[in-house]
């Protein structure tokens, strides 16, 4: 089973509502008996119901955010699927606005809603095509009330389709992987983009809540397998997939990958910039992937704000995949211990258990640990003999004892090289520096911090612009409390590195990967700054970047200085000459020691001009000396090096399959030119939105 975010039918993830678990029952009944009003009936909730009710936990706060999160989840799944089979990811994202009349016909209701009792409604009916500029203008003129309404309340129905060249899904697994909440293959200690098997299911739940339309999957798990078409709904009460159709068709083009499509309510107007920022940042951290974004507003007008953007691949170097590791002893708790004990054979000895099921415990250390635990424990006792209190004792000892730190080799950081490429590719800074910190450990989980600092470039505001990544996912929300933002803002003394934190356009790009990212809050949107180890690591990484930049900046300043030094110095020469001559011409009965100068000035032998010329000569001479010194110290002019394009080493055909399928044949011949025009149109679109 390729480890992908797409959830597999979990072998035995006991749902929380399982009535076979007596523990969950007890506290509830106790609580019910103490409450004075009529005893409430005991109810159970499925995980799907829970997340449907608390959809904000998963990032589905409002239609706008839901559109963003849906896109995010599907894109991340696509990347995981491609990376799991070492394919350079090729992800296309298609967002289509569905006009109300089309939406009604999709639901099987053909007539436009007919209003009879107008006082029943909050607002007058919204005319079609409100998104075009002209009608906005008309609205403003005719009806001042509706001034900003179409912009902010214009929730529309969108179809979001994401296609990838990933591992695909086996025919029979599709329903469970796509429509059972909390079913997944990633419940282990490993760095991964997703963890909980929630993303695509939440998109489906949101679709069900807002439009009621099912999710469509087209997938093929291998080039030789037939293509699976599946239309799925979710039974929220039982957290079970409802299969509407599940068919196979031949796969003549030997396609492998998946295509997932959901129809949801969303708000493109308010979240467009976020979605574009997300895609752009994803392109920064994943420069080896090709992203193709199309937005169709389905409004027939010249200024329909349709959008097409290609974030092109810049390298074919993929980071090595993350490895699964065993729990580190300092990260376990009693619950994990019990789970781990349940997974091994009851006859396993405790020594064997400790040395094989946990990280960083060699056999000798396991024996020492057991001796330390006291007379209740013997080295040959088996795990089946362990009582609850034994487990408590083991847990306490594991937290108190000293172990080797877990090493970071299991992680899959973006890599300094890729990060640098991504930054130059997307942010186009004038200067960039990157640095990767060595792995460190927080609460038993290894982590690696990589940072880049970019100066200048497109889309950067003056001041500090923070780009945050956790396990190679861009984090866009709750930036204010994040460890990276706080460190960049408060702990870095930018001025020491010749960078002005208020006027320079600084991009701080920071990627943190870990087997467990210590997110704060429910939304997985930011990492708190209360972990000193992570904070220190982030600070070191940014500081290192700044140091690299400083040398470059100092050199630049020196260049600038050298050009201006003559001007700066000569400016002061006349004043000095005047002051000297003025003074000595007034001196009467001078000392023996100054008589020579006084006499010469008063006799006119020394004038302002002579002094000035001598001073200027001296400055000129010093200038020459310094120019030679500078040239011999720095070598040839650095400015003459050129930017070169790094041609992909792999043949184009190897990863252009999707493109060929999607586009007409003539188009991909001049792909480079297409992508550059598309870029232009994206830029234009961004400018319009601003």
């Amino acid at each position, binding site marked *: 089973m390729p480890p992908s975010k797409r959830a597999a039918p979990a072998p035995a993830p006991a749902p929380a509502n399982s009535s076979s678990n007596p523990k969950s029952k007890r506290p509830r009944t106790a609580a019910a008996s103490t409450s004075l009003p009529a005893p409430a009936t005991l109810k159970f909730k499925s995980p799907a119901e829970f997340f449907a009710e608390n959809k904000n936990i998963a990032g589905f706060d409002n239609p706008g955010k839901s559109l963003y999160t849906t896109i995010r989840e599907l894109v991340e799944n696509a990347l995981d699927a491609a990376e799991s089979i070492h394919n350079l990811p090729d992800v296309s994202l298609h967002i289509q606005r569905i006009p109300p009349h089309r939406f009604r016909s999709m639901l099987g209701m053909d007539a436009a809603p007919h209003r009879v009792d107008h006082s029943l409604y909050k607002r007058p009916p919204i005319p079609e095509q409100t998104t075009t500029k002209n009608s906005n203008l008309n609205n403003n003129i005719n009806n001042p009330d509706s001034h900003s309404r179409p912009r902010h309340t214009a929730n529309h129905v969108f179809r979001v389709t994401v296609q990838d060249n990933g591992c695909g899904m086996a025919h029979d697994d599709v329903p469970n992987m796509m429509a059972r909440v909390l079913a997944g293959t990633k419940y282990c200690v490993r760095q991964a983009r997703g963890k909980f098997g929630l993303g695509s299911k939440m998109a489906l739940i949101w679709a069900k809540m807002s439009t009621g339309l099912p999710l469509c999957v087209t997938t093929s798990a291998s080039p030789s397998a037939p293509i699976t078409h599946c239309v799925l709904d979710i039974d929220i009460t039982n957290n079970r997939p409802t299969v509407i159709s599940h068919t196979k068709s031949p796969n003549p083009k030997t396609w492998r990958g998946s295509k997932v499509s959901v129809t949801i309510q969303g708000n493109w107007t308010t979240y467009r910039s976020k979605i574009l920022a997300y895609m752009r940042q994803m392109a920064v951290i994943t420069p080896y992937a090709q992203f193709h974004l199309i937005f169709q507003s389905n409004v027939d007008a010249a200024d329909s704000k349709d959008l097409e953007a290609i974030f092109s691949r810049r390298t074919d170097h993929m980071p090595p995949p993350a490895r699964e590791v065993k729990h580190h002893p300092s990260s376990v708790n009693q619950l994990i211990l019990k789970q781990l004990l349940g997974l091994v054979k009851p006859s396993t000895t405790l020594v064997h258990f400790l040395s094989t099921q946990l990280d960083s415990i060699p056999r000798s250390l396991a024996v020492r640990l057991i001796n330390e635990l006291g007379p209740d424990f013997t080295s040959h006792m088996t795990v089946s003999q362990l009582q609850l209190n034994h487990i408590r004792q083991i847990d306490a000892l594991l937290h108190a004892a000293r172990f080797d730190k877990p090493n970071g080799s299991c992680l899959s950081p973006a890599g300094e090289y890729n990060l640098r490429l991504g930054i130059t590719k997307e942010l186009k800074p004038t200067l960039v520096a990157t640095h990767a910190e060595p792995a460190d450990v927080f609460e038993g989980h290894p982590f690696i911090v990589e940072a880049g600092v970019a100066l200048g470039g497109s889309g950067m505001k003056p001041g500090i612009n923070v780009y945050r990544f956790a396990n190679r996912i861009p984090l866009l929300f709750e930036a204010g409390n994040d460890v990276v933002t706080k460190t960049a803002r408060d702990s870095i003394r930018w001025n020491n590195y010749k960078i002005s934190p208020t006027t320079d356009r600084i991009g701080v790009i920071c990627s943190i990967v870990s087997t467990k990212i210590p997110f704060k809050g429910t939304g997985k949107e930011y990492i708190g700054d209360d972990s000193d180890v992570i904070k220190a690591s982030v600070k070191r990484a940014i500081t290192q970047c700044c140091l690299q930049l400083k040398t470059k900046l100092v050199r630049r300043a020196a260049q600038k200085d050298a050009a*201006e030094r003559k001007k700066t110095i000569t400016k*002061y020469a006349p004043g000095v000459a005047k002051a*000297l001559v003025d*003074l000595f011409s007034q001196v009467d009965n001078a000392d023996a*020691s100054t008589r*020579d*100068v006084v006499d010469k000035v008063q006799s006119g032998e020394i004038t302002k001009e002579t002094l000035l010329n001598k001073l200027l*000569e*001296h400055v000129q001479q*010093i200038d020459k000396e310094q120019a030679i010194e500078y040239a011999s110290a720095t070598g040839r002019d650095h400015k003459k090096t050129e930017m070169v394009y790094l041609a992909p080493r792999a043949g184009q055909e190897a990863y252009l399959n999707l493109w060929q399928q999607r586009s007409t044949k003539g188009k991909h011949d001049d792909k480079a030119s297409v992508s550059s025009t598309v870029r232009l149109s994206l830029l234009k679109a961004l400018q319009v939105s601003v």
Partner: protein
Amino acid sequence: MAPTPGSSRKRTTSKQRKTISKRKTSSTFTASDVMRPVLALRDSMRKQRKAPTTLSDINIQGVLKEVLELGGLFVRRRIESALADVARSILDGRGFRYVVPTRSAGNQLYVEELDRIVLKDKTSVRAFANTSTVRKTAITTRVMGLVWELCKKRIHTTKRDLYYTDVKLFRTQGESDEVLNDVACMLGCTRTSLSVVASEKGIVIGRVQFREAGDLIDCTRMGVGGKAIPPYIEKITEIQSDADFILLVEKDAAFMRLAEDRFYNKYPCIIITAKGQPDVATRLLLKKLKDTLKIPILGLVDSDPYGLKILSVYMSGSKNMSYDSANLTTPDIKWLGVRPSDLNKYGIPDQCRLAMTEHDIKTGKELLEEDFIKKNEAWYKELELMVKNKEKAEIQALSNFGFQYLTEEYLPRKLAQGDWI
């Protein structure tokens, strides 16, 4: 009228109760009772007076020679000689440079025998043909020219006036002020010798008479505002006084209270304030009064790190002008109040105490490291107490017991008990 100090605090300690009962009797103090300890201090000071040590008396390596008070002609000669060197250097095609004693914190040395800071002999070279120092050299040349002119005409000017003679070159008054100090260092004379003075800041009132440029000034007849301390110390002559001590006050407000209540009439004294950090003129006057009258000086400052810093500037000098510390410092000032231990002793209510800020605490801790504090054990203990309690109080906190508490109760009792350190 004054609320009982214990009433606002939850617990009245026995110590505080004692202070309340004491306060009831304090108004019975007669002037002679109050002055007895001060007079004792004065006499013992006069007895153990020895010739002041100078830098040349003690054998210290690596310090700058003391600057001298020089007359206008000497200053002119020194400037001429320095600028003649400059002119010769320019004519030789070598450009020119000034060698200026460094006045940064790293170049300061506290000399315990002298009880003041002096400047070490580190110097920095300012070359004309260097982008980072060209401005300073140009300003230095210009300032020397201006000072020379002042000395020739035998007139004084203020620092502000000097700055306005060439605003375009100096840019800010700070820059011309700094260079002025550098010039004084380079020429080896005091800043006052340069004929440039600061505008008046300090005030004096009380039992002292002197002549200022020939005019008789009687500081007992200065109303309640006091006499502004003139910046030309050499013009103050014929100092006469029947005061028994000098009261150094940090704040203008406390000074006003003392002046209005004619504190100096009941307890013969001279009251001086510089309204915060002391300027050169105030420090010069204090030194001159002390040297002439040989009476003790008692300091009344806020109970915070800055109050102590102000006392330290009077006593051992400021870092910025340490080159002239010999003329500017007056050692042996007694710390009368308001001391951190007074807060509990006099039951200053909680609402009058302020919590020290992070910055205050940092300053306090830095002060604890300073030599002049370490040297005086009693001061060190008080400062330690302040940093430990993290509480500060201003002189005005005493007004909580009534506006005149300071002059009618607090100071008389402090003096009567000889409660200074």
